[in-house]
């Protein structure tokens, strides 16, 4: 498989604070990988290292290059959207298109025009006059018009309302995604990306706590609602998380024998967001 990002023992510290602690992960071509973790877990540090925006310890190769020394060349093949507020307010939409067209050899101006027209954004508007949602659409149009092999999104819908979030991901799925695209997306909003992803990386306190394909989750994780009288029997199977809500108890198991689980009740595959909560809160909640 073609590996686009390969991180080995990747670490990043700010003074005495460790943001990334010897992390290993890889991203393969054609995958849509969610790097998911709570605020301050190290997601942005990992992405900044991948983008060549920051120094780091350990080994990192992005599209075969060391990113920090080669950021400018890397950005020919990779494109990046940070959270919404980074397009400068003074820039006109037309200027953004003209400038990107002049600077980026893989930028297709007609494609950008098409996407902007679809989002009903006029070229003579300044970024500062647009709503947050429209700013994001402009950024997405600029980015999707670049024929990049790798798209990196850092909390791209931060600060947007529900409608704008939905519009962002709809545009991404409809106008961008196909089997040749590879996306790495960081977010703490699991629900809005879980139907998109092919792979998940959970990160917590600078460490990867789960690295799996979505298909792989079913074989590995089970969630069961446990009747009151079987709680002890179920706990003997060592669930990694137990949750009581409305008088019901749900337990989460990793690599538990299927036969033993079947005796307890009907096992299902937990959703990514349930798994995220279960994995990151640990124990009982």
């Amino acid at each position, binding site marked *: 498989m073609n590996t686009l990002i390969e991180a080995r023992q990747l670490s990043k510290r700010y003074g005495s604070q460790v943001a990334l602690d010897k992390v290993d992960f890889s991203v393969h071509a054609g995958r849509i990988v969610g790097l998911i973790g709570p605020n301050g877990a190290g997601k942005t540090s990992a992405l900044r290292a991948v*983008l060549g925006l920051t120094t780091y310890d350990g080994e990192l190769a992005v599209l075969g290059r060391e990113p920090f020394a080669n*950021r400018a060349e890397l*950005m020919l093949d990779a494109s990046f959207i940070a959270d919404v507020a*980074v397009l*400068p*307010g003074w*820039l006109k939409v037309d*200027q953004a298109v003209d400038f990107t067209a002049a600077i980026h050899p893989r930028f297709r101006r007609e494609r950008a025009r098409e996407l902007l027209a679809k989002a009903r954004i006029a070229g003579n508007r300044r970024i500062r006059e647009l709503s947050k949602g429209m700013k994001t659409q402009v950024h997405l149009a600029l980015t999707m018009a670049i024929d990049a092999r790798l798209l990196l999104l850092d909390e791209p819908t931060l600060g947007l309302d529900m409608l704008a979030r939905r519009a962002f991901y709809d545009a991404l799925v409809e106008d961008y995604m196909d089997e040749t695209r590879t996306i790495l997306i960081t977010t703490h909003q699991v629900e809005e990306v879980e139907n998109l992803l092919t792979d998940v990386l959970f990160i917590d306190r600078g460490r990867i706590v789960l690295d799996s394909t979505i298909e792989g989750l079913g074989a590995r994780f089970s969630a069961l609602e446990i009747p009151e009288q079987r709680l002890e029997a179920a706990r003997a199977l060592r669930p990694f998380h137990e949750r009581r809500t409305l008088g019901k108890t749900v337990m989460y198991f990793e690599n538990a024998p299927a036969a033993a689980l079947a005796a307890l009740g009907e096992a299902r595959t937990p959703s990514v967001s349930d798994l995220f909560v279960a994995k990151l809160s640990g124990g009982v909640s």
Partner: protein
Amino acid sequence: MNRFIWLVRRELWENRAIWTIPAFTAAALILATLFGRVQIEELTSVEQMRAASALVLIGFGAVFFGIMSVYSTWYLIDCLYTERKDRSILFWKSLPIADSASVLAKLCTALVAIPLVYLAATDAATLVIAFIVSVRARATLGGALFQPGLWLQLQALWMYGIAAAALWYLPLAGWLLVVSAWARRAATLWAVMPPLAVVLLEKAFLGSHAVADLLGDRIAGFYGVAFHANRGASGMVRLGDGADSIVAPASLWQLPDPGGFLSRPATWTGVLVGAALVYAAVQLRWRRVES
């Protein structure tokens, strides 16, 4: 090269004051010549007429370039600071532009593009002013400000001044870029305080003022190093009589002193220091991205 021009163009988009300030200056000067009092001494000879015209035109240019030096200082302090403040640096860095190209584009904007804009504004304004003067002071100056030879000389003079200033002020520009790329807040204070602190410490502990002299010469000494300052020498024309009289060069060609400027060690140590500071600013922009 074409990409580099786009980077400079981007600076002109972002900083509209590059256009608006000289435009307002031109408008104000034109209004002043329209409605102000024009008083011109009785000029008798052709030489006097020519010298007085040169002086008037240089004077208008000096107003523009004086304003420009204040603006350019502000621009250099601001250019790498604001993009970090408003986080737009993350957008610029998502494009395939090396940090060196970005920083050099900003440097070229300050030392070349902005002066050329001001030169264009100076020319446009003085053409209009020359016309107004030729009407209002028909009896004394007439069309004296319109002499093509004088205009061509003046263009050469300004171009030489812009080129020499780019070399002479490179260390100051480099310092401002370093501060702009480094400061987390109060960039203007950081630009001024460290040099001031060094000057004060030197005065307090050594009782000397070598650093103050060095900085003073660099900031205020440009005219003296790039142009002939030997007023009263041959080739000067006296205008007026007695205590009010001033002297003006008979020909503008007498003013530039490129030989002296380029053979001065201070010119080249300045260029070296400036290059080192610009290199440091590139490194800072490369390495410094806060969240």
